[in-house]
């Protein structure tokens, strides 16, 4: 008898409108525990909106979302405890030091023994020397790395990332994925580069005009991905 495990993330008939603009239309998606899912799509396909709703920042106008069987509507706080989010903006306070920022988020996430955890992450991301510098003095790449540290402080089970590699050089990118694999089980991320995204993912999907355009259950071939992406651009 097969044991059905709940999908790590399940989206059912999700819709979100802004006035008359339908950013998401009846979108459904299931992500298995342990998957690294890459979401591709043209500009304005709704990727960022989807991530914002998944991270509970935005409420959908219709549909439901479940994390391991728990619904967002009922159990948001518990879900957030296991969620790590990397967005376009860093969520970092520029007048505070890197250390201040990470201590703050450690306290919000009830991270035990955060001193060691912070030092470990900063070491891995090559930011240890800048620990006591104000974040306002950081370059784009450094803020991005610090934002990743912020997201991973509490060892989240599920990580949502919007263009995580932007601003990073290749060694930082490698560190990023290595850190992810250390602690997190399920990863959902968007990417603008088909090749890079395909490399990092265990499964890829494409969104177009607020819907799932190409949603295979298992990882397709690079050729298939390219073809599907090209036709998704035509519908845009």
């Amino acid at each position, binding site marked *: 008898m097969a044991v059905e495990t709940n999908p790590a993330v399940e989206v059912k008939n999700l819709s979100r409108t*802004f*006035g*008359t*603009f339908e950013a998401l239309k009846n979108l459904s998606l299931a992500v298995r525990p342990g998957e690294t899912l890459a979401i591709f799509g043209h500009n304005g396909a709704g990727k960022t909106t989807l991530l914002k709703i998944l991270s509970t920042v935005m409420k959908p106008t219709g549909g439901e979302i479940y994390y391991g069987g728990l619904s967002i509507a009922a159990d948001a706080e518990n879900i957030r405890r296991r969620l790590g989010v990397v967005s376009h903006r860093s969520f970092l306070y520029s007048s505070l030091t890197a250390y201040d920022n990470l201590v703050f988020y450690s306290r919000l996430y009830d991270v035990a023994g955060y001193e060691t955890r912070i030092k470990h992450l900063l070491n891995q991301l090559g930011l240890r020397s800048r620990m006591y510098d104000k974040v306002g003095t950081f370059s784009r790449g450094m803020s991005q790395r610090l934002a990743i540290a912020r997201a991973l402080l509490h060892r989240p089970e599920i990580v949502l990332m919007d263009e995580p590699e932007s601003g990073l050089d290749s060694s930082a990118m490698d560190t990023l994925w290595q850190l992810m694999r250390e602690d997190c089980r399920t990863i959902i991320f968007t990417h603008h580069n088909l090749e890079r995204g395909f490399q990092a993912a265990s499964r890829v999907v494409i969104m177009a005009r607020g819907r799932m355009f190409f949603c295979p259950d298992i990882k397709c071939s690079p050729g298939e991905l390219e073809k599907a992406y090209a036709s998704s651009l035509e519908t845009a």
Partner: protein
Amino acid sequence: MKRKVLFFISAGLLLLSFYMVLVFVPTEKDMGIVQRIFYYHVPLAWVAFLAFFVVFFASIGYLVKRKPRWDHVACASAEIGLVFISLMLLTGMIWAKSAWGVWWIWEPRLTTSLVLWFVYVAYFIVRAYVVEEERKARFGAVVGIIGFLNVPLVFLSVTLWRTQHPPLTIFTDGLAGSMMATLLVCLFAFNFFYIYLLAEVTLMKADERAVRQLKEKSIRRNS
């Protein structure tokens, strides 16, 4: 159909009120002709506060139900309320000038209405500077709720403040029968007129929204 009925009732009552205020009711002995403004001032005040209560109620309704209808009612009632309260303040000022020789006195009811006027204006300013339609409605609802909760406190504080000064009486004697009748007719007239206006403006807002949405859709289709 219902709107036509409302229209005729309010029009009828308003005409009746004009007759009663201008012709029927006797001139008051102390203040003379200007006193007749009282028969409009009081109903205007009543309706202005009623309108604001409706804004409060509809605002809560919107936050709970999130249906645009509630926002249309709230916004319509706020628009009507703003007009009525402006008229109430104007009539109050005319009254004050002829009764006490000054254009304005810091009397509890007038002062509370003045603060309410500012809250109404804030309601529209906030809405004007919010881009997204849904957020506009939400923010407006918050102003509608907080502003209304504020009214009794303003009235209390001004009353307490002004009891330290000699009180100003509106009338030395009671109201004569004919005066009471006139006042009641005006009150009814304005109430019906408010309900009629609310129905009309709410529907207008729904239409405005439909037009906006059609515009947006066609712009998007053509781009």
